[in-house]
């Protein structure tokens, strides 16, 4: 069994709403290995997004450890975490979350801007990814000039342009009709076949079916692995 890309050890996450403590995760152990394609399932509020954010180094656990390629990153400073996110992790969201006043090409370039990649190379790489995802003729379109499926493919291109070790997708089909959703899922499956490590959070059993393994969450715990 190969070494984990990212590993959660005894992770809990408690949100504080004034006086009230809301436990979102209550002791999760999880290892994501290179080449994995995991689906996180479970009812609303079960902690899927929270788990995804911890895997993506967007948030810190209340207790427990997060290991990235074997190193504890729980105590790294914000700038280092941002850099790791930029270089090694790609995010796709349910709401696409493209920057509205940038073109498709510029949106895809954005992660490379923060990494300091020079302009020419940036443009080239962004264009190549968009073309691979079938958006070669939509480079200069703004998000509001694109369909939902196209927007999600631009978002996917933005996540992939840095060639990340880990791709995280939080309900990427939640805002799409089923046909378009299937297109996105087929793309994810294809990426995984090419070796990309993916963790997908979803309600949808059909979406979860494309993954190699399914983890069921309930009340902040992993209750079933299938």
């Amino acid at each position, binding site marked *: 069994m190969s070494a984990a890309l990212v590993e959660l050890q005894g992770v809990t996450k408690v949100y504080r709403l004034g006086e009230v403590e809301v436990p979102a995760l209550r002791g999760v152990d999880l290892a994501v290995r290179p080449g994995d394609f995991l689906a996180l399932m479970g009812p609303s509020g079960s902690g899927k997004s929270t788990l995804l*954010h911890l895997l*993506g180094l*967007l*948030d810190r656990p209340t207790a427990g450890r997060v290991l990235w390629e074997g190193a504890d990153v729980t105590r790294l400073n*914000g*700038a280092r975490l*941002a*850099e790791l*996110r*930029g*270089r090694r992790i*790609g*995010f796709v*969201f349910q*709401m696409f*979350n493209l*920057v*509205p*006043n*940038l073109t498709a090409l510029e949106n895809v370039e*954005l*992660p490379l*801007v*923060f*990494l*300091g990649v020079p*302009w020419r190379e940036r443009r080239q790489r962004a264009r190549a990814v968009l073309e691979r995802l079938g958006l070669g003729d939509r480079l200069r379109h703004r998000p509001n000039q694109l369909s939902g499926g196209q927007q999600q493919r631009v978002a996917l291109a*933005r*996540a992939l342009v*840095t060639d990340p070790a880990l791709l995280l997708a939080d309900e990427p089909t939640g805002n799409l009709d089923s046909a378009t959703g299937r297109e996105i899922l087929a793309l994810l499956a294809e990426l995984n076949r090419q070796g990309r490590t993916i963790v997908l959070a979803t309600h949808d059993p059909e979406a979860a079916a494309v993954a190699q393994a399914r983890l069921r969450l309930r009340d902040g715990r992993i209750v079933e692995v299938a």
Partner: protein
Amino acid sequence: MLLDILRLSLRNIRHRGLRSWLTVIGILIGTAAVVALISVGQGLQRTIARRVEQIVGYNTILVTARGLNLGQRIRLDVEALRAIPGVKSAIAVRTETAYVEGPGGKGFLAVLGYDPAMAEFVTEMNLTVASGRALEAPGEVLLGSRTARVLGAEAGDTVRIEGRPFRVVGILQAQRAGGFATGGLSLLDLLVISLSELRQLFPGPELVHYAVVRLADRADMALVRERIRAHLSAVGERNAALTDFEDLTRNIQSVIRGVQAFLAGIAGIALLVGGVGVMNTMYTAVLERTREIGVLKAIGAKDSHVLLLFLFESGLMGLAGGALGLLTGLGVAWVATLVVSRVFEAQGAFAPALTAGLVFGSLLFAFAVGALSGLFPAIRAAKLPPVEALRYE
């Protein structure tokens, strides 16, 4: 990368369209007010410096009662001043109140002792006559137009001053400006005879409104001042003060600067209000783009990138307002000086100042107001936890 972030900021500003313009206008108004006031003020200072130089001259000392009070007389002998080594020439303006009888009226009236040298010192003393001619010989008098009416006299008549007959040879042109150089008396209300005749009529001690002393080339200002003081104390004059060109300009400039600082302060408040506008716009922008901030952080933006993104936005709006305000302010200053020149008949000598300091200073200041006003919103944006920003609806 800085440039890329700057480009992003520009995009966001353009994207907000009308709201950005309104914010920019807030800065524009403040900057325009500050620039206009400073430009007019500096122009005024320069004009006054030039005027003072014209009237008084660099190598000139003014001897007056303390506080530059020309209405109060001081005792001095202008001949003694002329005799001081290092003095090239000197004049003293002296008036006396005399009993005057004319063909149609009589009364106690002010008589000015005139010395042709005065004209070369004081432009106002370049007497122009409306009718008749200038003084040429002893026993001649010029009348101010109001005096002429009081006495019922015109050119060719004879008036008696302290009982002695003088022939009226001319009536002085009415001047709107004036009084300053003639010891607070308007030329309208004067009789002008030669200084030597005034001395014969009033042989008592020489009491003058003021004296102007011009130094010879390369004379030592401090030494001459010292000798004039010595003369004053010799004649028992304790209330006199000496003012040279530098003193005078310094005094006038400090008054102008004070007024200017006060007005610029008020204008600065307008600029501050513009800054509050920037702050408001930026807080709104941070709120509206909370989710976008979360996304930027998720794809690798550091806090510093987000901070710069928002700082550039507010700074650029400040800079735009500053540039437009600078142009507007200079335009306003130009129009204002035209109007002022018209109203005060300042013979076009008055122009607004345009210095590099004013241009770069106002641009820098407007940028700083914009950036500083945007600082707190930008810090808030940079410090947003990514997860909360992403969840924000």
